[in-house]
């Protein structure tokens, strides 16, 4: 068991944003967190990568208490790709990727040949080696996201937390990013907005609603028309797609089906 969360609770003020959540991720699994906007997906992840501190509950990463670890140690184990990736300063693509090496560095270390090799390798993995000297400020949203994925590869942690990593991206980039991550073969816990994406890439899914886990299971078990209507209030049809073998969801406009 890589990650074990028990009874995690967090509130921004009065109301619990995350209410008594327990979930686990096994080695090598790709686990999805889905749910409507404001259901607490991001908040759960922020509590894990320590942008927020939980009110109560325990989080064990590889059997160790994550919340008591030094920031550096948790950064060596957990890589994070968030939603906001704007850097309002002048950095080259390779400089942004090299920042992924930071947790490996001691106080006076400077980047050595090994770090440069890893940075180049990470960029090559995403087909971005020709862009290494480009200015990050001037990249498109999809390119920026690929640079951030390269950074998390350079970080060399084998557990990734993804917070809707493909939000706002064109569909080709969305697929590309998930394909890249899948190919890494690391353990993943990802908040996903798009249900079809979740069906395509996840081994298991947790469904959040109003800060609580209401459903869990494989995409086939979870993504049924009844469940989706109960959680999202949207009508749909679900069928196994002949080519992917995964469940595929078609949303139904008013007047069709009933």
């Amino acid at each position, binding site marked *: 068991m890589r990650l074990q969360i028990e009874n995690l609770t967090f509130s921004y003020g009065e109301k619990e944003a995350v209410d008594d959540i327990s979930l686990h991720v096994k080695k090598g699994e790709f686990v999805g967190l889905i749910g409507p906007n404001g259901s607490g997906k991001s908040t759960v992840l*922020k509590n894990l*990568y*320590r*942008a927020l501190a939980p009110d109560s509950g325990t989080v064990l990463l590889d059997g160790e208490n994550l919340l008591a670890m*030094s*920031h*550096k*140690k*948790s*950064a*060596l184990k*957990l*890589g*994070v790709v*968030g939603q*906001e*990736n*704007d*850097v*309002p*300063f*002048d*950095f*080259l693509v390779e*400089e*942004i990727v090299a*920042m*992924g090496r*930071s*947790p490996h*560095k001691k*106080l*006076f270390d*400077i980047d050595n040949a090994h770090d440069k090799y890893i940075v180049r390798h990470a960029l090559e993995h995403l087909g971005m080696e020709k862009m290494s*000297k480009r200015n990050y*400020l001037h990249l498109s949203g999809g390119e920026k996201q690929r640079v951030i994925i390269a950074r998390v590869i350079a*970080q060399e942690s084998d557990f990734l*937390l993804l917070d809707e990593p493909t939000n706002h991206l064109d569909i080709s980039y969305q697929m590309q990013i998930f394909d890249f991550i899948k190919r890494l073969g690391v353990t993943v816990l990802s908040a996903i907005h798009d249900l079809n994406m979740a069906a395509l890439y996840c081994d298991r899914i947790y469904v959040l609603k109003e800060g609580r886990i209401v459903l869990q299971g494989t995409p086939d078990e979870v993504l049924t028309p009844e469940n989706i209507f109960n959680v999202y209030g949207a009508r749909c049809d679900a069928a196994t797609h002949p080519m992917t073998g995964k469940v595929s969801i078609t949303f139904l406009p008013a007047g069709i089906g009933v």
Partner: protein
Amino acid sequence: MRTGFVKKIFNRANPNMGVIIAVLIVLAVASLLFGIGLGPVTVAPEKVMKILLSRIPGLEEAIPHTWEQLDQNIVLGLRLPRVCLGMVVGASLAVTGVTMQALVRNHLADPFILGVSSGAAATATLGMLFGAFSFLGEYSLSISAFIGSAATIIFVYTISRVRGRINITQLLLSGVAVSMIMDGVTRIITLSAPNALGLHNATFWMSGSLAGAKWGYLTLPLAVLVICMTVLMINYRGLNLLLLGDESAGALGVNVRRLQKMLVLVASLMAGVTIAVSGTIGFVGLMVPHFTRLLVGGDHRKVLPISALLGGILVVWVDVAARMVLAPEELPVGILTAILGGPLFIWLLKRNTKEHR
């Protein structure tokens, strides 16, 4: 051919740090020599060099004594401490700018624009008037200025933080408001207690000046600059990561809270001790980091030392202009830096709003 050579050194993608630093050090030394020579009474650079060399132990005899006593008094008594102070003040202000920009994640931050200088000036004058920190002896002024700068940074930072992010409009507006309030306080104090404040009049605190520099003014700002630079250079990775945002920095192993507290401390220390000796010299912390980033990019390992050198050189030359333009009248340096830096600020503001829709 020559442009190719220049491009190879000042290449943004792969700057040659050794050469750039060497060039800047040569420029700094040249600025020192010319800066000492230039003024209402001009002393030729070679004469300045001779006078300076003659003070080095062991060389007194080797240099023929070919200058007037007056020249020596001007060079050693008046100009040398002034130019050295200009270097230290410029470097400190530029590095303070870099620090504050990392703290608020925006390149529009500067101790003057965010009201920190005004806050420091106000508490410094208050301290003088009431002798609040007089038991600390000669450092009382610097310490009261430090308290003012720290209080303003924390105040402006806290009110412009909206849901964990710095809101740039809030930041700039609160900076303006705070600096107006603090300038008002300073003016009242300096006008109501002219004797207690001696040399330091309202113009000094609000426009900044290096006139009246003494060797005694130099020790504390220099010591603070060296210590703060060391601390910042050790943490250069943390500063870089902070520019990615609090959450990304935390995810990459930075203890964000601790680092931010340290930056507040470093910025207020440098701003405080600098303002205590020079008054408010605005926009240096805005202009210098901006041009530094154009030269070498955003990596703090490069930005910090280059900003310090450029800041020192800039202030020395602006101070030369301050005593030359209306000679024998002295212009406050802060007025000249404002005339230079103000337009750049407006241009950056314009570009900033364009980039963020």
